[in-house]
């Protein structure tokens, strides 16, 4: 499809065109920039919900049930589900669709995304993929991260509401005190509520929140058993409460902060690439050798490179 034809179809919300655009975005294809420039004013209209948590916590199942609930409420949904790329082969098995039967049967657009070496729980291009998906005219975008470790907190820079899914049996209460993933949840979910230890985990999370500073929005803790569809209505209500909270206060402000963060990232990437093209790989290698031989220190090396 030629870019012009693609843009035309995107504006009609054509599914194949959107799917193709997402491919171009994730391939960082050269043709994608003018397309995104063209459709930019039409994007940014969906409410973005991020779902993160350790592998096997039940993220995909919860996404599927949220999708089901959203349909009941006459909302249009798009789903991006990120899974890890193998660091060895560069390949990936993307299996989140497997758990999304309700969403699949309702014809919801689901896209499986490989992280392609990007760290932080998302792919480098996830932000723009959300914008691409918005050409379908969805009210809600659900973004599921890779099975996240403690430091995979990038979702918070993308989502309006971030849900952290935890499960019992992964560690003691000190784990709950550590910095990282638990801090980013606007909502905390204890899934597998039918398992032993789920009450205790919910209590520990409550204690952890109690020890911190009192914020305007205190994350509610919701216990769910996704395989039995328990607790999902409550989760849905809390999502809406959080949305209302943002609408009253700061949704534009928070979104602005996120766009600023993106802009800074892109700018540093852009300047870096430009500088690298200007000075060339060889110069970097020369400098590295000098630093290695202690002919120069790394700080002076940077100053010299910037001056060039």
């Amino acid at each position, binding site marked *: 499809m030629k870019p012009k034809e693609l843009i035309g179809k995107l504006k009609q919300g054509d*599914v*194949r065109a959107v*799917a*193709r655009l*997402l*491919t171009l975005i*994730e*391939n*960082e*294809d050269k043709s994608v920039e003018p397309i995104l420039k063209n459709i930019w004013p039409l994007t940014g209209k969906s409410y973005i919900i991020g779902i993160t948590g350790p592998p096997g916590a039940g993220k995909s199942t919860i996404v599927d049930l949220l999708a089901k609930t959203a349909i009941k409420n006459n909302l249009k949904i798009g789903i991006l589900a990120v899974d890890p*790329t*193998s660091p*060895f*082969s*560069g*390949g*990936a*098995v*993307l*299996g989140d*669709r*497997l758990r999304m039967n309700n969403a*699949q*049967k309702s*014809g919801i*657009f*689901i*896209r*499986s995304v*490989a992280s*392609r070496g990007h760290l932080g729980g998302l792919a480098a291009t996830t932000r723009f993929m959300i914008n691409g998906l918005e050409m379908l005219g969805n009210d809600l975008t659900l973004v599921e991260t890779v099975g996240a470790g403690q430091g995979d907190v990038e979702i918070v820079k993308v989502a309006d509401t971030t849900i952290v899914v935890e499960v019992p049996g992964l560690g003691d209460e000190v784990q709950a005190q550590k910095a990282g993933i638990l801090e980013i949840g606007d909502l905390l979910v204890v899934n597998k509520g039918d398992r032993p230890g789920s009450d205790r985990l919910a209590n520990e999370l409550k204690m952890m929140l109690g020890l911190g500073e009192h914020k305007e929005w205190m994350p509610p803790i919701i216990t769910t058993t996704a395989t039995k569809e328990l607790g999902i209505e409550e989760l849905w209500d809390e999502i809406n409460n959080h949305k209302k909270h943002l609408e009253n206060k700061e949704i534009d402000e928070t979104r602005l902060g996120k766009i600023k963060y993106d802009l800074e990232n892109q700018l540093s990437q852009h300047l870096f690439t430009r500088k690298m093209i200007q000075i060339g790989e060889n110069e970097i290698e020369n400098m590295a050798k000098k630093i290695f031989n202690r002919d120069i220190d790394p700080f002076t090396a940077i100053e010299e490179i910037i001056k060039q």
Partner: protein
Amino acid sequence: MEKAKIRVLIAKPGLDGHDRGAKVIARALRDSGMEVIYTGLRQSPEDIVEAAIQEDVHFIGLSILSGAHSHIFPKVIELLKENNAEDIKIIAGGIIPDQEIPKWKKIGIDAIFGPGTSTIDIIEYINRSVK
């Protein structure tokens, strides 16, 4: 930087639950650097084609051991046509009688890999076709 990847949807239509073959293929394609979308058991042709379009894959891989291919192959081909998605190619594996293979190839199955096929052959075939 060129970051294009070959994307393949592996589906297991029909009612039999023997998905070991599909999983072996998914794993082999992953290890050769492809992105494999695994959709699991008992998928209808409608589900498969819809998923393939959303995922913008180069190939659909169908694993069928129950004999249901006689119904599923023509249906998947027809649905791809209806959705203007004939550029998505279909490969198949499982239990497909040898004497039927020319017939299926004629109506639009790109390649059929029977029992005993080396995964390397499948990977090479896909790589060649996408280039």
